[in-house]
């Protein structure tokens, strides 16, 4: 990816994550309403607390992406987070946009993945299992 386009994508996604975090903080119960009943039943803590935790995670991902600190890790966590959101809320009129965010996060992971991590991953795949 061209350097400028990468930074546009990074900052744009960062602002999205940060603002979603702020929105959830404002009204955690309302955002919890998007969760499917089966997912709410799995929560070991009250829904509002779980949503506040989600808001903190969103803000942390956004902050990491914004300051360009470990962008691949932030985007990877962000992508996993969006995948979980899509699973627990289903693809609705609102969450359909998360597909775009998921792919954008994956694009950042692919583009900013450090060579060391990539080499480690390839090495891990090539090493034959003993026993």
């Amino acid at each position, binding site marked *: 990816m061209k350097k400028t386009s990468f930074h546009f994508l990074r*900052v744009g996604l*960062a*602002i999205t994550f*940060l*603002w979603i975090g*702020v929105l959830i*903080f404002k009204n955690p119960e309302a955002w919890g309403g998007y969760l499917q009943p089966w997912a709410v039943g799995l929560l070991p803590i009250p829904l509002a607390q779980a949503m506040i935790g989600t808001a903190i995670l969103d803000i942390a991902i956004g902050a990491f992406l914004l*300051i*360009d600190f470990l962008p691949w890790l932030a985007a990877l966590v962000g992508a996993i987070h969006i995948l979980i959101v899509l699973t627990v809320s289903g693809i609705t009129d609102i969450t359909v946009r998360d597909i775009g965010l998921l792919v954008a996060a994956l694009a950042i992971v692919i583009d900013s993945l450090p060579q060391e991590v990539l080499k480690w991953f390839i090495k891990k795949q090539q090493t034959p299992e003993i026993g």
Partner: protein
Amino acid sequence: MRRQVRPHLLRFLKHLGYNYLYMTSFALLFTLSAIGISETVYLIRKRIASEKPICPIGGGCTLVLSSKYNKIFIVPNDILGLLFYITASSISAFLFIGVPPLTFWSLIIKLSIAFGSILSLFFTYLQWRVIHAWCFWCLMSALTIWLMGSIILVSSLI
């Protein structure tokens, strides 16, 4: 009956519009300060690494950023900018969420943006008349702060 309902409806619509305007202005202030954070972090990183920043327009970035006006007392301007943008983004989030004391936060954000706008005006004057070079990142930051000032002004006037 209609005559009784209408003023209530109008008041409700006015309340909705007022709320919508305020919420939009906080969202815009937050977005602009986030852009400011990413800009200043970039400049701080480049300064620490002793590298030249990319200068898409103007070409005078290095000249301006290494001039004797690049700090106030001992604090580099990029650090001051970062602190300003972090404060602005936090306060606009507090105002949006409704973290008390709202009047205090509102006053602080207005004062800091007013101060930042005047300081940006001064720095732009320095680039134009004293240093005779234009720095893309400094102008971007000034524009961001002026836009934030315009949002505060417009939302206060309506």
